[in-house]
């Protein structure tokens, strides 16, 4: 029987700051540009990997309190940093790998996003960087 994993408690750190308790969703996508390598004689298109173009998209509750979301991100916009995601907050291991983007770029930071009757939240995209997965 197939076993699926319900990720209810993933861990997210941005520039070494644990923002898991402010995060409501996060997706780290590993992607490589597809370079067409089809040639005469091929009956189907074929591709090889080009440059990596990874990204992390996450939704965070906005908080301007000390050591919270804004304090973490304000000085990072327009710079490169490191983000790490894990399925759970437990130690890294074979069943709890860590996924890291090193030197990833935060292009934009919505400094305020307010809607009546809703908790303020922001969407961030960290672009590029070097991807690594670790199990130890």
């Amino acid at each position, binding site marked *: 029987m197939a076993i699926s994993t319900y990720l209810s408690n993933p861990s997210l750190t941005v*520039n*070494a*700051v*644990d*923002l898991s308790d402010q995060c409501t969703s996060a997706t780290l996508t590993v992607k490589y540009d597809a370079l067409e390598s089809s040639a005469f004689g091929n009956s189907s298109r074929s591709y090889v990997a080009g440059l990596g173009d990874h990204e992390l998209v996450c939704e965070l509750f906005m908080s301007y309190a*000390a*050591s919270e979301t804004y*304090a*973490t991100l*304000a*000085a*990072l916009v327009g*710079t*490169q*940093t*490191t983000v790490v995601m894990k399925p759970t907050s437990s130690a890294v291991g074979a069943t709890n790998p860590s996924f890291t983007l*090193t*030197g990833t770029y935060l292009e934009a930071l919505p400094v305020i996003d307010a809607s009546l009757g809703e908790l303020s939240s922001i969407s961030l995209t960290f672009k590029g960087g070097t991807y690594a997965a670790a199990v130890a």
Partner: protein
Amino acid sequence: MFTIISPRVGTPGDKFEPSEDINTEALIEGGFIKSDKTPTKSAKTVETSLEE
């Protein structure tokens, strides 16, 4: 080199050893860590009178 202030980074009071790509200036500015470097004293200005 750095000491942790905020539990979001680690145990407050512990030394913080950043990896190469961690932006420590952003962490200091955000109040997460503090630098242990002691400020360097500026050179004292000593007034001297010229002998005539």
